[in-house]
């Protein structure tokens, strides 16, 4: 992709994503520091690029620091921001503990701090607000879609879990189970971990298909992320079945490749984990700076459901440039 087309996509996205109702003119010309965890996943890379685009569209001078998965780097970066006298700080904290000292320093310097996509174990008055998704709700939205999709028909579901013991895996499982509870026709027959990866998702799905009468007994697969769903789709195809028709596929995250599968009729639904955590953060900051309105302590991003009716090809084209 050429730089020009990348820029064009970035520009169109920035306009699309920043079409928020309140004018945030008071952020123009401000300097804001952003301490990002790193770029361990495509989603995080997308979060970084969306944040940069948002800042550019609002005329913010964004100071970006990549912590490469280390808390000490993040603390150093935040201290650096305080020393530079930035107007606000965004942090995507790599771990939950150990933030009190540096957040207190920021508070003493009267710099508002906003947490992105993860929380911290620190007194709530040390940060302005935290913007995050509700993982239980993501699972619930996926489950509710399935409940509506199958109606009264019997449906045997297999689940591809995330890494055993990880918070998103626990929460997304819980949400899905909440949604299908009370619908006796939907049974969660098998559940195994696919470690959030495409390769393991494919391998586990192969096992499920063998174990469930060559896949004939499976009505739907629920994957805790899109990558595992993409792997499962390949396993379903290898078994001579039609993903999306013979076995329904529902997953979470909304990464570009699942939209490609959806456009090909091979995936049925995905719940978005939006990379746009900065948008609500800037909105809250703008209101706070304008008249001191304290925002809600926990801002929950929307968990939007996408189905083939939502122009998957268009979503794929838009998201592909974000670095997923």
């Amino acid at each position, binding site marked *: 992709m050429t730089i020009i087309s990348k820029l064009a996509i970035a520009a169109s996205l920035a306009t699309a994503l920043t079409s928020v109702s309140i004018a945030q003119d008071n952020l123009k010309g401000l300097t804001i520091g952003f301490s990002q965890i790193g770029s361990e996943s495509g989603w995080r890379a997308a979060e970084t690029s969306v944040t940069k685009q948002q800042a550019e569209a609002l005329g913010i001078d964004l100071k970006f620091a990549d912590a490469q998965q280390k808390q000490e780097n993040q603390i150093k970066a935040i201290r650096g921001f305080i020393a530079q006298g930035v107007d606000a700080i965004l942090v995507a904290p790599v771990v939950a503990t150990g933030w009190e000292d540096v957040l207190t320093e920021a508070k003493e310097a009267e710099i508002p701090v906003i947490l992105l996509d993860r929380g911290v174990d620190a007194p709530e008055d040390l940060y302005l607000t935290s913007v995050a998704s509700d993982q239980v709700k993501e699972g619930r939205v996926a489950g509710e879609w399935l409940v509506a999709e199958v109606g009264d028909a019997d449906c045997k579901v297999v689940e591809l*879990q995330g890494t055993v013991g990880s918070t998103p895996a626990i929460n997304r499982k819980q949400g899905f189970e909440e949604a299908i509870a009370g619908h006796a026709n939907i049974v969660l027959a098998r559940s195994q971990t696919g470690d959030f*990866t*495409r390769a393991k998702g494919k391998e586990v799905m192969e*096992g499920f298909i*063998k174990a469930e009468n*060559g896949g004939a007994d499976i009505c739907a697969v629920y994957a805790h992320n899109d990558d595992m769903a993409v792997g499962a789709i390949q396993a379903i195809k290898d078994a*001579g079945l039609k993903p999306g028709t013979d076995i329904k596929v529902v997953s979470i995250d909304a990464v570009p490749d699942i939209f490609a599968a959806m456009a090909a009729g091979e995936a049925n639904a995905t719940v978005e984990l939006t990379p746009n955590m900065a948008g609500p953060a800037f909105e809250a900051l703008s209101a706070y700076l304008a008249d001191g309105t304290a925002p809600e302590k926990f801002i929950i991003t929307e968990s939007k459901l996408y189905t083939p009716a939502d122009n998957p090809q268009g979503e794929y084209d838009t998201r592909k440039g974000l670095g997923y």
Partner: protein
Amino acid sequence: MKRLHLERLANPQLLALVAVLLINWLLFPNFFRISWQDGRLFGSLIDVINRGAPVAILAIGMTGVIATKGVDLSVGAIMAVCGAVAATMVVAGYPTPIAVVAALSVGLLCGLWNGFLVAVLDIQPIVATLVLMVAGRGIAQLITEGSIVTFNDPALIFIGTGSFLGFPMAAVIALALMILVTLLVRRTAIGLFIQAIGVNRAAASLAGIHSRMLLMLVYALSGFCAAIAGIVVAADIRGADANNSGLWLELDAILAVVIGGTSLLGGKFSIPLAVVGALIIQAMNTGILVSGFRPEFNLIVKAGMIILILMLQSPLVGSALGFFKRDPKQAASR
């Protein structure tokens, strides 16, 4: 002669493989059912050889390294790098053969780098290969720019998901590689030289063995095998996943080699048995998937089985059970 043949077949590794497969069968009665579908064999047993192939390929290279009293921790990262190279080149429009050859060359280069550190600079293998283990994944992420590079090139995909005479391509590649490398080391003196280096490198050098060259060779072979595994894995999921491809597989490969009876102290090795080791590990993985255990038990079940298998190989336990007790006189006369 006949007795010797039987004894060879009744080694602990093959018995363990049969035992694991039987346990799988008890947990899941259709485990051995194989059907013919879309011009290929289809069944859990086929999954075992297909999914076990990447680790088996790694284990083939790893056996040589461990036989020289070394270890190669970088194979997982090399897999990620080579998968990334193949995928990005195909996406950039290069013909598949060129992309594959480039990826294999990168793997070979990585292996030569390890060999250079170990053989020429005399750095301890665990430290020398740790360099690439850590840096390699970063290099792979640089190549893919942190995202999964998805491709649709039919020729490249065939390497991972195609079939040959009904058998999965990955397993065919692993088998061919095993036969080739086994012939290379056993039909020439190379195997003996590798063992000599593993027992005592200084003595081997004094005896006239080019130990530096041979060490470079075994590490290069390990890198090359990792490249093949990396291409197979990327081709299988039609994408190069720099963050996860080959993650922790170096440990599975070492485990496969150890289950195969190769000594970590060097000097004794078997490539076919390392491949059997890889199949044992995969048979357990596949068994867990079809049995319906809760995922929280995966690692516990695996650990328990591995402890059992390694105990079977322990000389102390072996003699206590009267298992494989060999008459010392007979062993000497062989």
